[in-house]
């Protein structure tokens, strides 16, 4: 067994956040969005960050993205401190992930060209077409974002993220503005892409305020209340989860999550 690389991967987790805090500063106000966050994520895990809106889950995600720097503490990815955005991470936003002046295919190809894969135009275009087909958007590559529905736009954004082949996917309520039926399809698509994402599974951090979505997708759910993590739930339920939605494990997890939504403050069961 030539296990050297494996060992090093086991030593340093994909993501390690220790004592991270974040304060928004306005001209004359300060607002503490995050205080003393500690989180360690293993490579290949599908993590959902849940919690009511305004609890800081998107802020936490932007620290991982490198779009914001923590006011205190450290955020490490692959053992190295985050100093800004990098091509080892790709992000999908709730809206406007795509550039409106590029067609679907140009958007995906643009991401590939700038993902540091060293691909040139023709190869990038081929890869873009391939990934658009994977998300069920074949033949729609020439459409501009304004010509696509919200669900289709998210498909393209996901295609771009996967085509860039990063180590970590960051998704900020990607399906938050999508109707229920399309959302279910996108959740399945997300799961399929993640399960078949090359030799080793990618690490996914998926922010959502939808309990059911978190239960369907996550290996582990991090539940937040304003500023802090209050619960860390590991889900050991086989996939695809839809088939197990009536099993006792699933129901128990759902009840626990719903209860968390109704409890107050960071409180005594804070981690």
């Amino acid at each position, binding site marked *: 067994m030539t296990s050297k690389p494996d060992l090093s991967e086991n030593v340093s987790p994909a993501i390690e956040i220790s004592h991270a805090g974040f304060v928004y500063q306005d001209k004359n106000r300060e607002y503490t969005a995050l205080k003393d966050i500690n989180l360690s994520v293993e490579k290949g895990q599908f993590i959902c960050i849940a919690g009511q809106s305004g609890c800081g889950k998107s802020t936490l995600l932007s620290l991982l993205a490198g779009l914001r720097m923590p006011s205190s503490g450290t955020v490490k990815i692959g053992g190295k401190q985050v100093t800004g955005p990098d*091509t080892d991470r790709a992000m999908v936003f*709730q809206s*406007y992930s795509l550039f*409106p002046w590029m067609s679907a295919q140009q958007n995906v190809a*643009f*991401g590939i060209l700038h993902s540091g894969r060293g691909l040139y135009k023709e190869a990038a275009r081929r890869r873009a077409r391939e990934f658009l087909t994977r998300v069920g958007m074949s033949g729609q590559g020439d459409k*501009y974002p304004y010509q696509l529905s919200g669900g289709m736009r998210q498909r393209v954004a996901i295609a771009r993220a996967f085509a860039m082949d990063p180590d970590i996917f960051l998704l900020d309520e990607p399906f938050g503005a999508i109707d229920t039926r399309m959302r279910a399809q996108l959740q399945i698509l997300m799961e399929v892409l993640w399960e078949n994402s090359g030799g080793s599974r990618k690490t996914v951090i998926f922010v959502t305020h939808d309990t059911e979505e978190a239960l369907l997708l996550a290996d582990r759910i991090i539940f937040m209340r304003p500023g802090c993590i209050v619960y860390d739930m590991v889900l050991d339920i086989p996939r695809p989860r839809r088939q197990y939605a009536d099993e006792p494990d699933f129901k128990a997890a759902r009840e626990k999550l719903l209860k968390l939504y109704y409890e107050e403050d960071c409180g005594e069961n804070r981690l």
Partner: protein
Amino acid sequence: MNFLLTHIFLAVLLYMVFFLAARKNGTWNGLSFFIAVLMMEGLFLFSVFRAGRKDSLSTGPFDIMMIVWSLLIVWELSTTILHVAHPVLVPSPENVFDTFRVQWQKMLLNIAYSMQLLVTGFFAGWIPGILLGLAAGWFPRVKHIAYPIANVMAPIPAIVFSPYLVAIMPTFRSASVLVILLGVFWPAFLTTVNRVASIEPQIMDSARMLSLDDGTMIFHVLLPYIIPGVVSGLKVSVTTSLLMLNFAELMGATHGMGYYVQNSIAYANYTHAAAGIIVIGIVVTGLSKAVSIFSEHAVKWR
């Protein structure tokens, strides 16, 4: 109904041109005027039939045409037929429109000359204005220098520089190019900076996640983002620069549309002056029409 009414006006006008005018004066030189009227009528019919399929209720073209015909009737009546207007200061429509037949080569030359200055000055101001705006939008340091300067410079009408610039620049051409440049540069810069500042934060984040270099960021993200705004302001910029140019040409030019008018008035040739003013009107209309057609087709993505 509207159609009939407009054509009654037209019939009255034509009756005057063909019968009253000749009977009154013995001689008849109304051919150019008649051709001009025919061209107006043709343009009118064209726009009516083209709009007819879309909205048949619009009375706009009919009303405008009735106003045009009545103005021409009044003009014809007060000069050629009744001779109540000042014979030198108010030339007859026959003579004014005949100027086009006699002087069309000279006029085209002057239009070409003005257009050349306009295009040179416009692009010399517009493109650097946008580029500096993009730079200021992306590099805060550039913005801190250029933005306050622009806020002082932009509101000063470039026209007020023109007498001075005509005096200090070596040639009139360079002076008028500079006037247009100044008039276009700062507004282009300010619009660009403001538009870059109003970019959707998620689009910026999305771009930052790709860790793009400065050049890619400016030319593949910021530039395409501002293009719709820039293009929609294009019409105003072009017509104001033409205005500035015509104004500059009133002093010290040796060619150009504004010069043509100015020169004709200097020699008390009000017939040519009136014809020159009509030419400027036609050129401005044509130019702004061309720019709007371009603007409509320039942006495919919205």
